[in-house]
């Protein structure tokens, strides 16, 4: 049997993780070492020239990290992957491989705030220019394409608004423009949504969230769909042209359908340096083995909490795509039929004061700035992450004074609801 014959849960446990060849260790060992011994100078030369597979230095690859990469690639249905220090690092390496100074990429406005900052500020200093479009109006994405556009970036389930993106429609725009579609699949995980099946070419994740699940380790990953022709028009010179730092090899010619992941590793990670630690890779692998079990509980709890909130007199609205009242309900049925994740927002009729009251009053939910933990999490953006903005700016940013964001955990759902009930008052 090969991988395609096995189910998701089997892959989550076994893909990439055969017993260790030297010791027979059944659990993946933590290879906590910076470097690896060469057999001889010929072997070293082959590794440095990319002629042989093998480990050189943990900034570029590590056997614990490799198991994580192979496993996520298998779960997403990709050809290869590259794990990084964080989700932000994964995005940095993706755009480093695709863009030259002066190039543009299109991103949807409905993104994680950290990505908005990275694109608006840090990327600008590299000369990589983001052009914003609206995820709900795909025509605005098509209208934003110019001859400088090198990629489109979206989130499958947008953070924090409970929105689901029409990946297939946006993929058609990308195909027409001859550019790759990058999907951040963090809030969905491959158990809820498989972006490659809807036309995505590259997937990125913050592994820190649902994939790890435990909230104890940072990590990110780039997954190569192996489904984009990087050589067709010279638009992506790092992939198609001879590379001076590897004696003139051409990445796409040499590595074919894993060329993008290899380019991010041997040119991006090698030179920019945001490697994942072997221990964090191990911690994330441990969490991943129970991914489907946890996601099943996350989405079932989230659905019940959203329905309870919607029926509550003090709640003005609930943005969860699993509710029939949501404008994203139909998209959720198509792209995330098992449930549209566990991160969503709701608004209180009492406005700013009511928002402060609820985050102050919770005893079980944790008031912090993360999502995708086993624990239920809550934050009131207007008094924290978005407190420097005016109320008008907060509303435009999707973080109005009355808005509260939840990341529903896997506790007993009655306890989560009881805690929210007493905090809302």
């Amino acid at each position: 049997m090969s991988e395609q014959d096995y189910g998701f849960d089997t892959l989550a446990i076994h893909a990439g993780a055969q017993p260790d060849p030297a010791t027979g260790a059944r659990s993946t060992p933590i290879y906590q070492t910076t470097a690896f011994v060469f057999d001889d100078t010929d072997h070293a030369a082959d590794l440095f020239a990319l002629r042989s597979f093998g480990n050189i230095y943990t900034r570029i690859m590590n056997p614990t990290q490799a198991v994580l990469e192979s496993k996520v690639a298998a779960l997403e249905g990709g050809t290869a992957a590259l794990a990084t220090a964080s989700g932000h690092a994964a995005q940095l390496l993706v755009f480093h491989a695709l863009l030259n100074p002066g190039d543009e990429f299109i991103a949807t406005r409905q993104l994680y705030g950290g990505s908005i900052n990275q694109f608006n500020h840090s990327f600008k200093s590299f000369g990589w220019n983001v052009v914003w479009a609206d995820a709900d109006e795909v025509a605005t994405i098509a209208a934003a394409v110019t001859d400088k556009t090198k990629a489109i970036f979206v989130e499958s389930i947008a953070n924090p608004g409970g929105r689901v993106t029409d990946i297939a429609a946006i993929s058609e725009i990308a195909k027409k423009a001859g550019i790759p579609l990058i999907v951040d699949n963090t809030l969905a995980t491959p158990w809820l949504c498989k972006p490659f099946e809807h036309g995505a070419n590259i997937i990125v994740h913050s592994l820190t969230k649902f994939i790890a699940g435990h909230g104890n380790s940072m990590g990110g990953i780039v997954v190569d769909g192996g489904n984009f022709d990087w050589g067709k028009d010279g638009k992506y010179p790092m992939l198609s042209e001879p590379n001076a730092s590897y004696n003139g090899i051409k990445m796409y010619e040499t590595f074919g359908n894993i060329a993008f992941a290899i380019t991010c590793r041997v040119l991006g990670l090698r030179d920019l340096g945001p490697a994942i630690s072997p221990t964090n890779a191990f911690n994330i692998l441990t969490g991943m083995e129970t991914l489907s079990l946890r996601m099943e509980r996350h989405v079932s709890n989230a659905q019940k909490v959203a329905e309870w909130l919607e029926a509550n007199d003090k709640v003005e609205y609930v943005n969860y795509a699993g509710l029939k009242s949501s404008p994203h309900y139909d998209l959720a049925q198509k792209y995330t039929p098992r449930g549209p994740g566990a991160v969503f927002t709701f608004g209180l009729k009492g406005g700013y004061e009511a928002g402060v009251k609820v985050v102050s009053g919770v005893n079980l939910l944790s008031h912090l700035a993360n999502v995708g933990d086993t624990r239920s999490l809550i934050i009131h953006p207007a008094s924290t992450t978005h407190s420097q903005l005016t109320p008008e700016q907060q509303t435009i940013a999707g973080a109005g004074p009355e808005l509260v964001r939840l990341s529903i955990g896997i506790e007993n759902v009655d306890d989560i609801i009881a805690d929210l009930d007493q905090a809302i008052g």
Partner: protein
Amino acid sequence: MDHFTYTNDYISGILQSVKTIALVGASAKKVRPSYFVMKYLLDKGYRIIPINPGLAGQELLGQTVYASLSDVPEPIDMVDIFRNSEAAGSITDEALTLSPLPKVIWMQLSVRNDEAAQKAEAAGLQVVMDRCPKIEYGKLSGEWAWVGGSTGVISSKKQTLHQSGKMQSLGLAPKK
């Protein structure tokens, strides 16, 4: 067999049953994929005979280069074709005139010639198209995962260190 997908058993059966591989389209340029593949397969213990009329008589990675398959003075188990799909037709025709016949015709990534494949199969040969033996060896041994690749292998048996005893080298598991 539609030659779009192959089972792991089919590929590992081939890679464990051949020893002498004629590599048609071998290159002396160290950055070419054919050079990468030749070096890797030599390191894994295969005998590689490079074929390239422009380099005939010279040595490549210590192996004598021949102008054509017909010039090779020893039996060939597998013909690995690093030429375009059209050229794969005449190379397969030539391979089918050899005595003894090779056991396998292998066409590299992006190389596909269904007519040649039918002829070879009719003569009792096994055929692989649009694949690379280095990549397939790496997937089946587990080395492919070292660079983040999805190997397509699920197994509770431990990976096999290569018989050469080299530190970073996995081998194909013995045939069942």
